[in-house]
């Protein structure tokens, strides 16, 4: 589906720092840098996989794009429009164009609302249609996510559904407004392996049928490989590697990406370590500017990696890497 090269979302030098909450008992503030000067482009109609460990800032990116949070510095553009300037009506309009699917289907549905109430709510808020057309739209989106026949599910409450079914309801809610862009934040990490694939297939169908752009956030490099057109690897708020999915998987350039691929259990194929990355754990941390992966990197060289942060550089064929030695 790499027919269009038009951008839909662009992140421009985003920086986001979380301050640990002044809890009741602790008065000192710890700063946790979630994102550090991160720039990224998402093309219309693609599925971009954002791969990273927990705490890498990958969820933060998703939340910033849908404007659940605001960046400290930097700008985010949707169709070349700065989303930080949106107010009231234009914000509401923005909301209908971007949606999000959350990680935990047990937490993302209001236990007090039935499936119908959950899915119809965005239509009510945006005052779309009357009650019969709303009914129809709800049915349509339920069918799209494979909850067939919809009538069987409309009256159910979340606790009567399985995890996979809940996640489909959450997807139905996200697509009922016909958005252009969906952030899927680890939508299957809480689900069983057999259910996981069904959700992936639904996402693929959304892309193909409705031409929805998807930012797929995941910790699993295999899931990204299965689903995505492009993959971006993120580590501690820095983009490490970015490129076409096939390229990144078969020919990873960054030592961190190699480590990720190596760490993945090699199902039934003995214990081949393809890249033999041995992660260092005992390197002294450096104050000031350095490569974010410096402490754990095997191939890092003193005098190079510990004094400068590598830029994301294009290698070939849209494949770019942030490493001095790639």
């Amino acid at each position, binding site marked *: 589906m790499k027919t269009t090269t038009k951008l839909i979302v662009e992140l421009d030098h985003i920086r986001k720092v979380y301050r640990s909450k002044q809890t009741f008992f602790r008065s000192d503030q710890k700063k946790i840098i979630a994102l550090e000067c991160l720039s990224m482009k998402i093309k219309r109609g693609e599925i971009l996989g954002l791969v990273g460990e927990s705490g890498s800032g990958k969820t933060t990116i998703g939340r910033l794009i849908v404007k659940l949070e605001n960046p400290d510095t930097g700008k985010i553009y949707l169709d070349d429009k700065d989303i930080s300037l949106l107010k009231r009506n234009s914000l509401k309009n923005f909301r209908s164009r971007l949606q999000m699917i959350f990680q935990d289907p047990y937490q993302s549905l209001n236990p007090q609302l039935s499936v119908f109430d959950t899915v119809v709510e965005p239509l009510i808020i945006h005052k779309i249609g009357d009650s019969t057309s709303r009914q129809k739209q709800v049915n349509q989106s339920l069918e799209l996510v494979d909850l067939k026949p919809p009538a069987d599910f409309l009256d159910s409450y979340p606790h009567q559904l399985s995890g996979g079914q809940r996640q489909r309801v959450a997807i139905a809610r996200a697509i009922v407004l016909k958005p252009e862009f969906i952030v899927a934040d680890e939508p299957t990490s809480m689900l069983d*392996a057999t259910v996981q*694939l069904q959700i992936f297939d639904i996402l693929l169908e959304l892309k193909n049928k409705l031409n929805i752009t998807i930012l797929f956030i995941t910790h699993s490099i295999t899931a990204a490989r299965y689903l995505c057109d492009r993959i971006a690897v993120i580590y501690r708020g820095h983009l490490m590697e970015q490129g076409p999915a096939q390229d990144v998987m078969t020919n990873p350039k960054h030592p961190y990406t190699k480590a990720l691929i190596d760490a993945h259990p090699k199902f039934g194929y003995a214990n081949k370590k393809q890249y033999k990355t041995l992660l260092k754990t005992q390197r002294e941390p450096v104050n000031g500017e350095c490569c974010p992966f410096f402490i754990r990197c095997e191939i890092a060289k003193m005098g190079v990696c510990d004094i400068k942060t590598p830029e994301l550089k294009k290698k070939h064929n849209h494949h770019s890497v942030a490493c001095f030695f790639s």
Partner: protein
Amino acid sequence: MTLLEVKDLSVVYQTRKGFITALNNISFELNRGNTLGLVGESGCGKSTLGMALMRLLPGNASIIKGNLFFENQDLLKLTDDEIRQIRWKKISMIFQAAMNALNPVHRVADQIMEAITTHNSSLLRESAIKQTEKLFDLVNIPKRRMTEYPHQYSGGMKQRAVIAMALACRPSLIIADEPTTALDVILQSQILESIKLFQKKLNLAILFISHDIAVVADICHDICVMYAGELIEYGAKEKVLGAPVHPYTKTLISSYLTLIRDLRPLKPVQDSTTSHISNPDLCCFLNYCPNSEKICRNQKPVWVELAPDHRVFCLLANKIYNG
């Protein structure tokens, strides 16, 4: 040499809505120094099995049938005092959520030492401290962190501390209940490596419970596949994963995404968590089985032994096996 033998184990939970069968006629064996992987989806009863082996089931669960032979004595026939002697000294556990497995108000080292001194009351405090230090060394936690509290540890370190605790009394069997589920991939592979290392060093038997078939494939010698409280396929890793026979095992394996295989796996079956039990006498996978035939709806499934180290609980096993 057989260390643990589970025979026809059945466990039911008593709930408001009646009895729910959590485990149904589970039988398997585990040899000294071996790793047995127990794989299945959430809610298939695999954690219940782990707790049953320790006789730590919650109050509303009861073992209605079966035997648990450990070192040739039936664990189910022991008194509470006797089983307490066996816990941790002979069988220890690595829990799923390491952050919750450590008591927040006690120092980590004290909790490990407690395990040592409980089962060796004649031990002097100094030598208990020495042993604890050794354990910290073994799992690669700096000694200066011995006096710290659990909340000062990072996630991976907590998990390592829990492993150290499990090794404290040199048990012959460790039950590892999803020990790496909450961890990142890189951390997971490190923890798995270290578990493998200890196993060789200490000649441990491990019962490794996981939902992730790839992790099980990585670490285990034998594999049990569970579905809805029943064991459905059991055998050596190479057999079960290399030539799976039970339709459910096939689904499970095909739904696993790898880095190497084809991009499009088999189309998976229906969402399986809705309702398993239509008729308790019939095959538990019947409603979702792509291969089911008329015979499956009329007859109880049976164990079919395809090889000495490969058994399948399916009426059509031979047919599927032979193509």
